């Protein structure tokens, strides 16, 4: 006796089955894709809220002017193409025909101008462009012109990158909302429509195929190419408990799970109806950041001591277990497998760990047993595992560890505090970065070393900033490579942050679902279900 007949059979003698609700037909079920996202879709403004989950949903609902393909090259998406003036200052874009918003209105250049205007203040690359922007205007309904005061060769990458916030195109009236205020209408320009009435934050989000979307003719490749939706309806089912998500996938109650935990992978692999594969080849980079403003980590030698002693293998095994396919050592800061990957200057992170050297560096750095306030968010498995390893490492080095077990929300607030640890500040906290953010310096906030403007820890290393500036202005791949080598070696020398290794994650889906690709976010185009 199977589930669908269990209660009905039991109840038949009492009341018959007339009370049961209507069941989905097989055809309708096949046209609905049920997806378990990484976390709850708590808001749906991909500019106001920059969480990955919002970006992932946003990519289905809003289209972009450009989109990076699997080679990380930006390809035209909503535009037919562009021209660039000889001096590299004036970009002119023309929108392709047939673009429509979900309310039926055509997508016009003025909508694009407003959307870019809302995106720029919230995006690091957008801010750089805005600082050199002379004008951004709609020349006619399908043409807009962007005039800069100095060349910005990475402009197309900025418009097509996967990192949040992505430059999504919204109707002008919505895009005029201040970028620090949440929008209240969700009128998209992409291949799927957000069904607001069925949105239950924390439980479910529903998307429907937008029939009037005109996909490009090229094959889909990540955010580029023809975004053809092959199901009628996409349901995001939020499941906070991985064991429940695993059981639901095995039971056929959901079709695709974005991020199964590694502990459950053997169980899923044993089920012949389930396929398991790497989710994102660009993976993640584990990290902990040391506070460059306060003792003891205001000393470069003390920071280097930690690098000399730390074992990335310890961190990675704590994160992903014994599956060696899921991690790599990372003697640098850029994503392995990406064109920007380099090991320049990474010797201190290679080879056997050297505790003697670490202790010598601690002494040279003037460490005087100051407490190291180590903030560890316990509600994030990645930070918790890394924090436990770090606490053990520092104790073995002879450091005085003040382990602060807290939650991610508190970490988010406390890491902004610059005062000494004894006055509410901190010495170190743990985090991780999506590999897609770390393929180059474009959207890589964690690598920045511009003091107060840098990410938490506030490293101030002009040579790193110089390398980043050289990458932005690099005229060719060779110059880009040289700039990245410089950034990597200088960042390691000054320990902008401590990379704990590169790790991958899995995704899992029912075998009756096809078309799922590996990428930095779940792409719903090209996915079908039988």
């Amino acid at each position, binding site marked *: 006796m199977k589930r669908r007949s269990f209660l009905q059979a039991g109840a038949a003698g009492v009341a018959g089955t007339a009370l049961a609700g209507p069941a989905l037909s097989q055809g309708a079920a096949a046209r609905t894709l049920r997806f378990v996202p990484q976390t709850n879709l708590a808001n749906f403004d991909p500019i106001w809220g920059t969480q990955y989950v919002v970006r992932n949903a946003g990519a289905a609902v809003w289209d972009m002017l450009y989109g990076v393909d699997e080679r990380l090259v930006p390809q035209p998406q909503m535009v037919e193409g562009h021209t660039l003036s000889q001096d590299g200052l004036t970009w002119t874009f023309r929108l392709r025909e047939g673009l429509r918003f979900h309310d039926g209105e055509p997508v016009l250049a003025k909508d694009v101008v407003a959307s870019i205007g809302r995106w720029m203040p919230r995006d*690091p690359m957008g801010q750089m462009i805005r600082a050199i922007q002379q004008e951004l205007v709609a020349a006619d309904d399908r043409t807009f012109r962007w005039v800069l005061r100095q060349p910005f060769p990475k402009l197309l990458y900025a418009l097509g990158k996967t990192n949040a916030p992505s430059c999504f195109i919204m109707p002008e009236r919505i895009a005029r909302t201040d970028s620090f205020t949440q929008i209240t209408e969700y009128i998209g320009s992409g291949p799927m429509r957000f069904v607001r009435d069925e949105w239950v*934050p924390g439980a479910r989000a529903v998307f429907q195929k937008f029939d009037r979307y005109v996909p490009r003719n090229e094959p889909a490749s990540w955010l580029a190419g023809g975004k053809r939706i092959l199901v009628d309806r996409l349901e995001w089912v939020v499941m906070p408990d991985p064991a*429940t998500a695993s*059981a639901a996938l095995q039971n056929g*109650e959901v079709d695709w799970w974005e991020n199964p935990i590694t502990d459950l992978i053997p169980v899923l692999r044993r089920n012949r109806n389930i396929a398991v594969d790497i989710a994102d080849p660009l993976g993640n980079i584990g990290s902990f950041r040391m506070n460059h403003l306060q003792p003891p980590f205001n000393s470069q030698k003390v920071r280097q001591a930690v690098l000399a002693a730390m074992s990335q293998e310890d961190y990675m095994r704590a994160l992903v277990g014994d599956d060696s396919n899921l991690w790599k050592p990372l003697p640098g800061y850029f994503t392995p497998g990406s064109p920007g990957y380099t090991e320049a200057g990474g010797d201190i992170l290679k080879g056997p760990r050297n505790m003697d050297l670490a202790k010598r560096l601690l002494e040279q750095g003037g460490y005087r047993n100051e407490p190291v306030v180590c903030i560890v968010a316990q509600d994030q498995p990645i930070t918790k595992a890394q924090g436990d390893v770090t606490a053990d490492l520092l104790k073995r080095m002879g450091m005085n560890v003040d382990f602060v077990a807290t939650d991610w929300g*508190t970490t988010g607030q406390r890491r902004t505090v610059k005062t000494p640890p004894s006055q509410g500040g901190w010495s170190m906290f743990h985090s991780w970065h999506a590999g897609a953010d770390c393929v180059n310096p474009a959207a890589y906030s964690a690598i920045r070393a511009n003091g107060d403007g840098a990410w938490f820890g506030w490293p101030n290393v002009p040579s790193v900033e110089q390398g980043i500036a050289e990458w932005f202005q690099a005229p060719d791949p060779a110059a880009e490579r040289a700039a990245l080598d410089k950034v990597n070696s200088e960042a390691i020398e000054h320990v902008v942050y401590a990379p704990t290794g590169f790790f991958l994650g899995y995704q899992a889906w029912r075998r009756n679902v096809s078309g799922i690709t590996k990428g930095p976010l779940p792409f719903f185009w090209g996915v079908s279900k039988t």
Partner: protein
Amino acid sequence: MWAYIIRRILATIPVMAIVALFVFSLLYLSPGDPAAVIAGDQATPDDVERIRASLGLDRPYLVRFGAWTWDILRGDLGTSIFTNLPVSTMIQQRIEPTLSLMIVTLILAVTIAIPMGVVAAWKQGTTIDRCVMAFAVLGFSVPVFVVGYVLAYVFALELDWLPVQGYTPISNGFFPWMENLILPAVALGGVYIALIARITRASMLEVLSQDYVRTARAKGAAQPSILFVHALKNAAVPIVTIIGIGFAGLIGGAVVTESVFAIPGLGRLTVDAILRRDYPVIQGVILLFSFAYVLVNLLVDLSYTLFDPRIRY
């Protein structure tokens, strides 16, 4: 009686006011910043400050508390910082699954536990009594989530009789609704079955030793009549009290159960809101829970008059 009810209802006002003040103050003092969560990792301190200002989180404590209290008095629980939805809408979306889970759990617990307790008292010292007590110890000892996982494994994964997760509104039909509630209710009900069964047994043992029960037996009354008509009614006051107390425990238990079975109820809403520091949602839900708790206590107190005519208000 009516005067008592009105007095009790009026007494809830200062209770709710104290709860409101306490919850608001606690959240104000607790660490964490929703603006930092919203701003994300790329944000500069200026960005965070702008978001904080746009949400009104930069205002002084008294101003924020005053504004919030004024809104509450007008029946407005506020708007979620994250979803931009009214808190009342979010509660409306979530209240049915939680109420359903609580009601089914309570019905299940009461219908199983009371006969168990009565029979255990009747058969005191026998194997049946010991089995009931052993079950009670087990029910107390095994955490809800463990029971939940075992039930899901057996009845959903292995037998495929019931779904693993989710919730179907009762408007979609009684049986689809029940299908999603059976496993969570059994998982959550275990501890209440144990609790109520123990209290019932203890209370019945005391009543069964009373003279009037001996008299009833001497008159030749049937055993079921002695147990369920003569004795149980007089043993009911502590049982009803413990059911009322159990309601408060159900609120906490629902948080775990809703997570294990992915039921979109108020428990999960509360946890999500706490983790994100969504203050208006936390405040709204806790106020609602407090009110429900006060109301249940009132109903329990009133129910005493049904079981014991000596009690008068």
